[in-house]
């Protein structure tokens, strides 16, 4: 584990998303974005525990996971701008990022849907004797879905080497987890015989340690308790909408996952990393701006 790497990754995700939020009102990104601001430590800590050859399956709130796993930043920004150079050639957008070379399987916009795919991918890797850990990353909303229980059962039954990482940000859109679940979330995997632990999802180091331990005994389950700072979809805050309050959020702001890492580095090192990241982000946005839109022939390309 390398704190500098963790910080660089968390800071980079935060700043990319702040820039996305900043340009969003220009309507250059003509599609929904679901920001991970406040939740960076989950992806950063998880991916620190993974090898480049390991594979993750994520969700429509997927910028953080994509970037933490090593997905190409330029191609992500071009994808958000709907450009031909995007990671999905402009056909996927923010919700369907992919970079298979980095072990980032495509993200999906249907809650819970990628979870059994991760199980199947892990099963196939085991069948082919490939030394790959497969990770299903999903939100607390996915815990409501029947397919999650089905997936946990099958993974336990076949001893599939898959790691389940639940990013519990307390809300499925605007519905609180307590309004949707009678028991704590870890009770569900445990009922299927899958070991589960809950961890402070603001602390990248704690997430890293929990995932590393859990990876050694896959199938296993890690719940990361975290908090979404911005609205469910879009670039703004929404503490005035009545479903939650700024007061509720304050303790989470105090445990800013990026700042928790920043405090562990000396200022000189930190500023050096930040300068590098800022230059990279500026370059990525420039790349997205300057890239061409797909030509009309692309409409029917990759169809069959």
């Amino acid at each position: 584990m390398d704190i500098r790497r963790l910080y660089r990754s968390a800071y980079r995700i935060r700043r990319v998303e702040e820039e996305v939020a900043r340009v969003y009102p220009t309507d250059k990104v003509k599609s929904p974005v679901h920001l991970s601001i406040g939740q960076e430590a989950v992806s950063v800590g998880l991916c620190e525990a993974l090898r480049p050859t390991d594979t993750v399956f994520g969700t429509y709130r997927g910028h953080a996971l994509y970037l933490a796993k090593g997905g190409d930043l330029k191609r992500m920004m071009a994808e958000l701008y709907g450009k031909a150079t995007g990671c999905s050639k402009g056909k996927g957008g923010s919700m369907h990022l992919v970079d298979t070379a980095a072990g980032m399987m495509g993200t999906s916009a249907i809650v819970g849907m990628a979870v059994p795919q991760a199980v199947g991918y892990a099963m196939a890797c085991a069948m082919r004797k490939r030394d790959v850990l497969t990770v299903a990353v999903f939100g607390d909303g996915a815990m409501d879905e029947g397919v999650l229980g089905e997936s946990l059962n099958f993974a336990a039954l076949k001893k599939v080497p898959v790691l389940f990482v639940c990013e519990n940000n307390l809300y499925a859109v605007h519905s609180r987890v307590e309004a949707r679940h009678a028991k704590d979330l870890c009770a569900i995997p445990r009922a299927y015989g899958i070991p589960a632990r809950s961890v402070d999802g603001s602390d990248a180091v704690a997430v890293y340690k929990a995932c590393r331990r859990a990876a050694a005994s896959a199938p296993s389950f890690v719940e990361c308790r975290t908090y979404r700072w911005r609205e469910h979809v879009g670039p703004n805050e929404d503490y005035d909408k009545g479903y939650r309050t700024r007061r509720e959020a304050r303790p989470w702001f105090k445990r800013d996952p990026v700042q928790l890492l920043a405090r562990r580095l000396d200022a000189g090192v930190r500023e050096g990393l930040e300068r590098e990241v800022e230059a990279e982000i500026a370059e990525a946005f420039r790349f997205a701006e300057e890239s061409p839109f797909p030509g009309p022939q692309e409409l029917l390309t990759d169809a069959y």
Partner: protein
Amino acid sequence: MERLLTYTEAVREALEVEMARDPRIFVMGLGVDDFKAVNGTTAGLAQRFGPSRVFDVPLSEDAMTGVAIGAALAGLRPVHVHIRMDFLLLAMNQLANMAAKARYMWGGSVSVPLVVRAIIGRGWGQGAQHSQALHSLLMHIPGLRVVAPSTPHDAKGMLIASIREDNPVVFVEHRMLADLKGPVPQKPYALPFGRATVVEEGGDLTLVGVSHMLQECLRAAALLRTKGLSAEVIDPVSLSPLDAETIARSVRKTKRLVVADCAWTACGAGSEILASTAERLGGGFKARRLGLAPVACPTTRVLEDLFYPNSRTIASAAYALATGDESWRPEAGDAPEISQFKGPC
């Protein structure tokens, strides 16, 4: 001498030769390794290829379809078997939202070589939730290929083609075809997607039969011959992509089209066949669709017989189309695969 196999044997043979050829292929589904072996279609495969390549699954159609897609994304080639197509409705999220979309939505970076075998059809009171042919729901979705071969020859060739295809295919098998015998070459062969077969040539009208309805159309053609009408009988084989050109070519000649489907007519395969023919011909032909009565499938045999089109209703509709005489009701033709079928199954 031609080798004769049943439809079931042809399906089984296709699975076996392909599994022997390519170790990435595996078969999963409820009961694929049990003593009934999905009506015999997977018999002996678990013994030959072992439990890692032929395995039973929990009753979790949604997750198991996701598992199959995940395995396909990892480079394996799953064949997922459903003993009733009705159960596919529990898997529609994975099929429609992921299997069909992944390649395009992720800019061509992945492919999903998945075969879903779905058994349809009537037989011995299967009733409302054990008999449905839902291929038209799937035909609507770009990214899914849908095939419904009606002969042992085509079953083997299309299943091999489906297994070798790098994109998802739903392979529809009618229970009433299981024991149908026909010539099947020994060597492996793959048939192309999107190619219909002109099974019988004729000049007065065109009969198109989907899946088991092809058998009924062939019997209807025999009944029509007794009235001096010659029917061209076409098996679409592949529903998506559909070989609309072969059908249109026939209708251009006969000016009359009857499509019989073992599904409801609304937004169905028959509607698609009529519409695509009309687009090509620009009118100038008469047409009828025959399908299930617009209700759930009743169980009692007397109503079930009325619920499905058969050789008599097809012949009667075709005769009316050709002559304007709606009154002809031919004598009951024999449908041994239906009359002799016994359950429980």
